[in-house]
């Protein structure tokens, strides 16, 4: 079974291994030991901080296969992007060019570099071991963050977004990058992607085009990649869409992967989650799968297990109680998966 909890320094080697597997296009999770260490440190510091309103905190969680006590996935949340340097995206806007006389009415999509997501909370880098990419593990890892947000709303903004990995092949070739970014960065996608993960982002302001890019002037392969999700991310995308995330016409400036956003309060998990008491089942549960969380900040943890909602609380199997290290009567948070 699986458990999600905040990352700790001891997890570094496992995280590095994961990052290496994750490959190109996961800018927020670079296979760089120092940066990963920073990420863990930042997460720990954030959990230990008394937050009144969101700023530059970030939270990193790991997914544990409890049968082997092994880390098999991770994910995170940035409380607010764009605090130090602006956060860049492309907004796809239609430019209308019409000539009544020639009876031409063109609506031409164009990419506008913008900061529209600066100041917003972001869910980042869902990475999971190939062997564990099953529905339960992925849902647990993805939604554990939402349970965390529901518990600590003051730590996040009312809007939440997530960037999905765009199309690129296994060699890191991205048709979109090749047609656009490469001309301005003079480097390949792999390198830009890596730099964007490890460096401050000044260089984006310095190098990116300042004027809108008219989509029809791009090569077809690049046009086709705009707003398209990398096939490896299709499963996690489905989970987000089912949660209530929507595409609002924003894409990543490097690979044109789509950005999904939502009002935090209207997300399924956040709207449906509830707090109550843990009850004990004496036998195996016949109930539906639930996500169940407990603990506070540093000790926050979530698991997925069958459970039976009752008037007095949520009835859990003994093994589930043990996995969460709670006992009958403990305060827990849950939502049906």
């Amino acid at each position, binding site marked *: 079974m699986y458990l999600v909890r905040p990352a700790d320094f001891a997890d570094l080697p496992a995280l590095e291994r994961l990052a290496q597997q994750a490959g190109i296009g996961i800018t927020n999770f670079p296979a760089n030991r120092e940066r990963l260490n920073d990420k863990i440190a930042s997460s720990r510091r954030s959990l230990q901080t008394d937050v009144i309103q969101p700023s530059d905190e970030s939270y990193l969680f790991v997914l544990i296969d409890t049968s082997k006590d092994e880390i098999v996935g991770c994910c995170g949340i940035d409380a607010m992007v764009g605090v130090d340097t602006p956060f860049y995206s492309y907004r796809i806007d239609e430019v209308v*060019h019409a000539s009544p006389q020639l009876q031409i009415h063109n609506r*031409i999509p164009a990419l506008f570099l913008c900061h529209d997501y600066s100041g917003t909370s972001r869910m980042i880098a869902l990475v999971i071991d190939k062997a564990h990419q099953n529905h339960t593990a992925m849902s647990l890892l993805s939604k554990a963050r939402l349970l965390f947000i529901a518990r600590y709303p003051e730590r996040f903004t009312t809007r939440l977004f997530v960037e999905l990995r765009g199309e690129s092949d296994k060699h890191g070739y991205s048709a979109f990058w090749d047609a656009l970014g490469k001309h301005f960065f003079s480097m390949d996608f792999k390198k830009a992607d890596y730099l964007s993960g490890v*460096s401050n982002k000044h260089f984006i302001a310095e190098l990116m*085009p300042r004027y809108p890019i008219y989509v029809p002037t791009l090569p077809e392969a690049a046009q086709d990649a705009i707003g398209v999700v990398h096939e490896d991310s299709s499963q996690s995308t489905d989970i987000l869409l089912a949660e209530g995330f929507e595409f609002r016409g924003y894409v990543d400036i490097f690979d044109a992967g789509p950005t999904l956003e939502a009002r935090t309060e209207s997300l399924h998990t956040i709207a449906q989650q509830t707090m109550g008491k843990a009850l004990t089942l004496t036998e195996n549960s016949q109930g539906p799968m639930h996500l169940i969380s407990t603990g506070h900040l540093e000790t926050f943890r979530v698991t997925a297990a069958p459970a039976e909602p009752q008037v007095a609380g949520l009835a859990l199997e003994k093994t589930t109680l043990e996995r969460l290290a709670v006992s009958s009567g403990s305060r827990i948070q849950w939502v049906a998966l």
Partner: protein
Amino acid sequence: MMVIRPICQNDLKSLYRLAEKTGIGFTSLVADEAVLQKKIAGAVRSFAKETITTPNNEDYLMVLEDTTTGDVVGTCGILSTVGLDEPFYSYHLGTITHASRELGVHNAVPTLILNNDFTGCSEICTLFLEEDYRHSKNGQFLSKARFMFMAQFPERFTEKVFAEMRGVSDENGVSPLWESLGRHFFSIDFKEADELTSQGNKQFIAELMPNNPVYVNLLPKDARDVLGQVHQNTIPARRLLEQEGFRYENYVDIFDGGPSLEARVQDIRAVRDSRLCLANIRATNDAEQPKGIGEGNYYLVSNAKVEAFRCILVQRSTPPGSAMTLTQDEADNLCITNKEPVRIVELSPYSR
């Protein structure tokens, strides 16, 4: 003798005949009688203006006449100002630098910026010479006679003058720049767009062209390559203007990317080096014919009149001094009498 003179009402048929021969892409001379009639009327009106203090929409259209046959075999023109009735569009090829010291990256990105910078500026245009007459320096003569007129009447033109050169397109009239840029915004084809423009209808450009700079580095290579390049047939014309001091200052045609060449009028070689002197006419029956006629260097000779402007091409083996000796025939074709002033200049920059 070949004489260049202002066009007149009687030239309509000749001009129509010339227009028919120009072919596709020559948009300033369209075989449409009403259009040509209007053009001639405008030119006649312009040459009829005795004095002018500032240029304003005059159209100085001239023709090359073969006086032995009376045929009009070529035409050339100067517009005193463009863009005052209908906006005149061009692209300025600029540079935007993107540099990151941290990454050691420095990119100077070329951009195309839509503008009307030539608004109110004089333009030399409508140069066409019949195929049979493309010999004996007629081409140079036709092109440069305009500079004689400008040298004599600088008040009729702006300080700067420019010329649009035909850009690159293939034998089917397909322009690489249009295919990768204009086409996306116009939803009509190059020919149609070009025709609309030549008819003076340019509102649609403002309506349909992108306002924002276009990054040249994002255009396909074949489109990038034609920016500022002339059509193969136009290479000699470009060289001729460059020898006179015209320069490409990064303005190109919005459709085919052909360059605009520009110069200050006073910096044009034929204007700067031209000088006024008095005509010294030897009567035809004079025993002593002027020496060295028909050999040596070529000279453009024009009179100093507006409405009766004339320009001829002569050859002299000895450079003219303070007076210009002319035969009676030459003087007649220049519409001058003895001791009237004429303007002369070497036909080409290397013959002085």
